[in-house]
């Protein structure tokens, strides 16, 4: 059973360990500094942490010994901005997503750009084709002033799917030579009615893929939950109990019918329904959901689990979630029962096993 997890928080990177069945804080790094995203150690122990220093900008650090020691490496950055270039300033505001596939590293940023490194973050290359999409200057922000890429799902050597707030989902099947919108079927109730199904207007809060059946994708969207069974070509809306608003989604790594969500009231009231924290789980592809409460606070709770704050381990049983008010809960039975971490953490930006 997995015994290590990582929390990227408003005030540092926190390593959690499970010993004798109980999770506890093992080590902290970058204490006091915002860590916007992390990439857990690979088999060699190499991991990455993206910092968002309030005054001094975006920084990227690497560790070759699973977080024991760190060194600064090159952070993704734009080249010179051409005179009169439309849209967001060519300045990386935050690293919002970090993923790897083989030797390739991917970074999704605010503003909405994708960067790739094939030399362990010594250098980064901006995906020019995506950045130069004609409609990109009109992409909207979602929760931030500029659009951003928060979900990156590489598949094979050539396919990468992205979730963009707020510009739908984008996919390449030819390693970035071409990109296409792939949010068809998503519905935006915050838009004028005639634009509700405009793929470019969609605000997926997070997109997660089933590792064993990668054509199955789950999306927690600004106003709903959607699932695709054909790699994102078409999305179907699902309806969860209590609320379909939320940020986080976790896809079961082996079972394409199972996923977890953490609902909140609505966009205008981002707290748990009735101030009771729950997890919605489906095990039948979204036809029905169970609302899981055991071990979670059921009164006076204002914890919101942000888009990267819910994780499932490779075993499909270990779950963990962290909130914007620093609560962390873990489950080792697929969400049936939860146990609170005995610590008060900073606001949690991302939580990952590994």
């Amino acid at each position, binding site marked *: 059973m997995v015994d290590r997890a990582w929390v990227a928080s408003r005030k540092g990177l926190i390593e959690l360990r499970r010993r004798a069945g109980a999770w506890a804080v093992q080590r902290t790094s970058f204490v006091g500094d915002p860590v916007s995203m992390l990439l857990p150690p690979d088999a060699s122990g190499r991991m990455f942490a993206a910092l968002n*220093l*309030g*005054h*001094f*900008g975006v*920084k990227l650090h690497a560790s070759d010994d699973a977080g024991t020691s760190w060194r*600064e490496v090159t*952070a993704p*950055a*734009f*080249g*010179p*901005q051409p005179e009169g270039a439309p849209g967001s*300033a*060519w*300045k*990386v505001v935050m690293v919002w997503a970090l993923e790897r596939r083989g030797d390739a590293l991917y970074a999704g940023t605010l503003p909405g750009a994708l960067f790739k490194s094939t030399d362990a973050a010594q250098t980064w290359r901006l995906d020019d084709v995506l950045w130069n999409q004609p409609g990109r200057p009109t992409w909207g922000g979602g929760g931030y002033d500029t659009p951003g890429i928060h979900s990156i799902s590489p598949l094979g050597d050539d396919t990468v799917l992205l979730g963009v707030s707020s510009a739908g989902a984008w996919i390449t099947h030819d390693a970035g030579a071409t990109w296409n919108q792939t949010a068809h079927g998503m519905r935006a109730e915050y838009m004028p009615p005639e634009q509700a199904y405009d793929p470019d207007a969609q605000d997926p809060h997070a997109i997660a893929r089933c590792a064993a059946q990668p054509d199955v994708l789950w999306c927690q969207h600004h106003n709903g939950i959607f699932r695709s069974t054909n790699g994102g070509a078409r999305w179907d809306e699902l309806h969860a109990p209590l609320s379909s608003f939320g940020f986080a989604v976790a896809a079961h790594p082996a079972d394409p019918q199972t996923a977890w969500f953490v609902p909140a009231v609505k966009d205008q009231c981002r707290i748990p329904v009735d101030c009771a924290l729950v997890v919605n789980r489906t095990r039948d592809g979204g036809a029905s959901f169970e609302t899981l409460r055991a071990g979670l606070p059921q009164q006076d709770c204002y914890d919101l689990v942000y888009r990267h704050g819910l994780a499932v381990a490779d075993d499909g049983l270990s779950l963990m979630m962290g909130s914007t008010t620093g609560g962390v809960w873990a489950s080792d039975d697929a969400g049936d029962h939860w146990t609170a971490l005995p610590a008060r953490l900073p606001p949690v930006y991302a939580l990952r096993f590994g």
Partner: protein
Amino acid sequence: MPHIAFTSQLQRFTETPELRTAAATLRDALDAAFEANPRLRHYVLDEQGHLRQHVVVYISGRRVADREALTDALAPDDKVYVLQALTGG
């Protein structure tokens, strides 16, 4: 010659040279400091060469005017302080 110094907060991340330079503009003075420590550049300036949003520079008591091209002129007895702005949290 103008004198340039950096907030001690930066020393958590990288070395901050304190030096006198014959620079005639803020840009030249910063470049002199970055020559002493190249890593310092990306803590003070963004990738477009502008002052980072939450970095503030004072030149002998006046707040820098040109945050992008950094053309503020320096007099021989000017003191330049590169600080963190309170807007940054």
